[in-house]
């Protein structure tokens, strides 16, 4: 099939890719742009592991045609924050046990970031609701709620991170 040259804005960078028009955004991110953070966990848009932000709104990249998103700003998990400069939602996730196997984490982090961007101080019910389209098979979700709460604390109060292997790695004991 003939390829089309398109331009996508991903994590603040303009990227040109030549792709068949039917190619899914998830596959373009993973295969053409080397952004393998977004995951494919299902075939029917039911797991949420592929979620990305499109103009700030969480969307499933596994059911989105890449060609349709040329005029949008796309943020993947890699664009939320990098090692050494983690976004509070990421550091909260690491420190509260939000990730076990970690496969669902990119999608959850996207949903959590979208939630906190529009509602900086959500209730537990609001957190549950906002994360209800992401599946996690490891955690039973309790530590994911803790992770979101930790992110809120760190964003609001600038509260010092709890001592963790993460902070130990950065500064030593």
């Amino acid at each position, binding site marked *: 099939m003939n390829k089309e040259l398109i331009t996508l804005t991903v994590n603040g960078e303009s990227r040109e890719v030549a792709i068949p028009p039917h190619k899914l955004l998830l596959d373009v991110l993973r295969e053409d742009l080397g952004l393998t*953070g977004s995951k*494919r966990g299902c075939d029917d848009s039911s797991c949420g592991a592929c979620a990305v932000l499109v103009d700030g709104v969480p969307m499933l990249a596994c059911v989105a045609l890449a060609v349709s998103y040329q005029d949008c700003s796309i943020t993947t998990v890699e664009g939320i924050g990098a090692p050494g400069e983690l976004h509070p939602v990421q550091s909260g996730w690491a420190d509260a*046990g939000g990730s076990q*196997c970690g496969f669902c984490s990119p999608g959850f982090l996207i949903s959590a970031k979208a939630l906190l961007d529009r509602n900086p101080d959500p209730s537990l019910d609001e957190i549950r609701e906002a994360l209800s389209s992401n599946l996690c098979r490891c955690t*039973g979700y309790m530590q994911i709620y803790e992770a979101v709460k930790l992110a809120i604390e760190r964003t609001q109060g600038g509260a010092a991170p709890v001592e963790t292997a993460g902070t130990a790695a950065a500064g030593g004991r």
Partner: protein
Amino acid sequence: MAGHSIIGKPLAMTDSPGKVTGLGLYADDLAVPGMLCGRILHSPYPHARIRAIDTSAAEALPGVKAVVTGKDAPRPYGILPIGHDECVFAVDKARYIGDNVAAVAATSPEIAEQALELIRVDYEALPAWFDAEKSMQAEGEWIHADRARNIEKEYHHVFGDVDGGFAGADFVREQRYFAGEINHGAMEPHSTLAIWAPDARLTVHSSTQVPYYLHRTLSEVCEMPMSQIRVIKPLVGGGFGGKSEIIPLEVAAAVLARKSRRPVKITYTREEVFFAHRGRPITIVELKTGITRAGKISAVAARVIQDGGAYCGYGPVTVLYSGALLGAIYDIPALRYDGFRVLTNKPACGAMRGHGTVNVRFAFEALLDELACAAGLDPADVRRCNMLPAPCITVNGLRVTSYGLPECVEKVVERSGWNDKRGKLPPGKGMGLACSHYVSGAANPIIRSNMPHTTVHIKVDRDAAITVYSGASEIGQGSDTMQVQIVAEVLGVAPARIKLIAADTDLTPIDLGSYSSRVTFMAGNACLDAARNLRTQILEGVAQKYKVPVETLDLRESWVITLDDSRLKITFDDAIAAALEFRGALVAKGTYAPPEEARGGKHKGAGVGPSPSYSYSAQVAEVTVDRETGHVTVDRIVAAHDCGRALNPICVDGQVIGSVYMGMGQALQEEMVWHDGRLMNPSLLEYRMPTTLETPPIECIIVESMDPEGPFGAKEAGEGSLAATIPAIANAIYDAIGVRINSLPITPEKVLAAIREKEKQMATPAGGKGGRP
């Protein structure tokens, strides 16, 4: 605890930076130049002889680089030495819808899919069996010719005076329980990248819990020496047992890579994950239990039938665990067990979290609750009066060393408000209690030998980096973090100083894998042993260089000091330099092998069940049942888990809560639904794992019984809590509405039917039995 600066701390997992940034690499994230896409052709028939396969059209398609069938890898394999009954591609027969028939490697997924459509298979449909009890009656055309009546294995065990026990009981109850089939549902679909190198070496990156068994099986099936094969485990997106045996795509990718001389990656679709399966089998449990008026269990008899699907897999182990783990939780004087593992024309079942114990524990704890009600006893008291006199050897030969179950029961009774609330809840609300346990690894390896179950190496060189080489497999449970913590603790350094190289068969010594909750106990003990050896070497070097007696030295917080005075205080780096001065780079080894006395009895099947140590769990579930719709809402679950010692409380909490969550899914909503061997819900949309909205608050209480042989007292935390959740919920439903649902999952349909049946009984003059206790 005094003296431990790293053990027991809630540290973030060492691999979390990669997981929260999306930079950590799982198998499907890997790509190498020249990589081909592999796809597998699956059988559309549940049972069919394969008369011929014509691959010529597929081979001729431009972009196709290899097509393989059973002829390319005809050697049978299986995870158990007694169960080598599957080939990567069906050689003579396809045995389930989804069985593997052929595979292609092509330059794009589209070409690979097109090539699959061009493969012509001439099938001759055969009679098929979909129900275990009917399959056991089959008189011919058995699924495997050497398995008469489709019975893979049966075991019959009697311990103690069972008949006498029942005769002496004041209350005896007998029930039949059913549990539907469950899939692990790991979020990561299986993926394997196999790379064939010009020097005829094969490197396989795979989403596996068992790199060593994969290594071994690839060697057997590909007929290559293990020394020519390297297996590397990248990040694994959840296992729960679904990646704990050799999965067809792993062998298929290797065979395709060898034939095409190119790297080949295969990643399963979610439907293929259900085809590969290896999950928890449909289980029928016929259980009889007797108790005295005081609540003491006098005898137990169980007959278990497991619908194992088309291949052996871990089947005999599953059905043995179902019997063996009737023991090691309560003091049971007499036990009879009849277990049948039956073949059917469906995907093979295997090990899943709580392997073999879960469905039987559901039956056991539900029946014990029924007996407690019959005897007019508090279900918590019935558990209390059946505690083991640990340390002890159980009637079926299991050695129990540490036993926190009594404390678990007390903790959940207290936290849940059991004594105050039970019996006083509003209509439609109820609470139920149940217990469970699990092994901390199997004391006997799958392939019998005296080899240690884990070996760990630690290297220290001039850069003072401490590099741990361990074959243990991180699958999300915290394996890597646990090992780093133990080594850091022994050496008195920060965890960040430890580099861990794990699960790469070229670099790391053998560890048997992440299954049966063995990693903390076994790899942890091997790390402890290796780190202690290294510590001795370092201190001996310091003693030699600084001319101080070695026994006066200690390693603490990155310093080496003399214990009794201040004669010496040098940094860890200086200590390493001193030790290297005499010896060169330091290399320490540690191993773990279970002690002889933990390895169980001598009867047939005695090898399964024994463990160096058992974890314990007690739980209370609170539910609300809608009598109009039959819908059950779980309001809260309190779980106390005896993990021996919580090396990292965040990880223990996560494991226990995750287990409870998974048990809740099985209790109420998960089930693989079959129609004539076809799975009707092979997707995450229809196989309904609980979301945030269905998951209640789950509270974990850690109980530390300090196992005498566990590393720093630790034992398992990752599986033992799952089994208690299901009966705790079932018992709570009974408490709420006075009906017992003995079939999983407990769907609204079943609840409504049971309510109606009870109403019908109450309405007839002869009825009126049962009701709320």
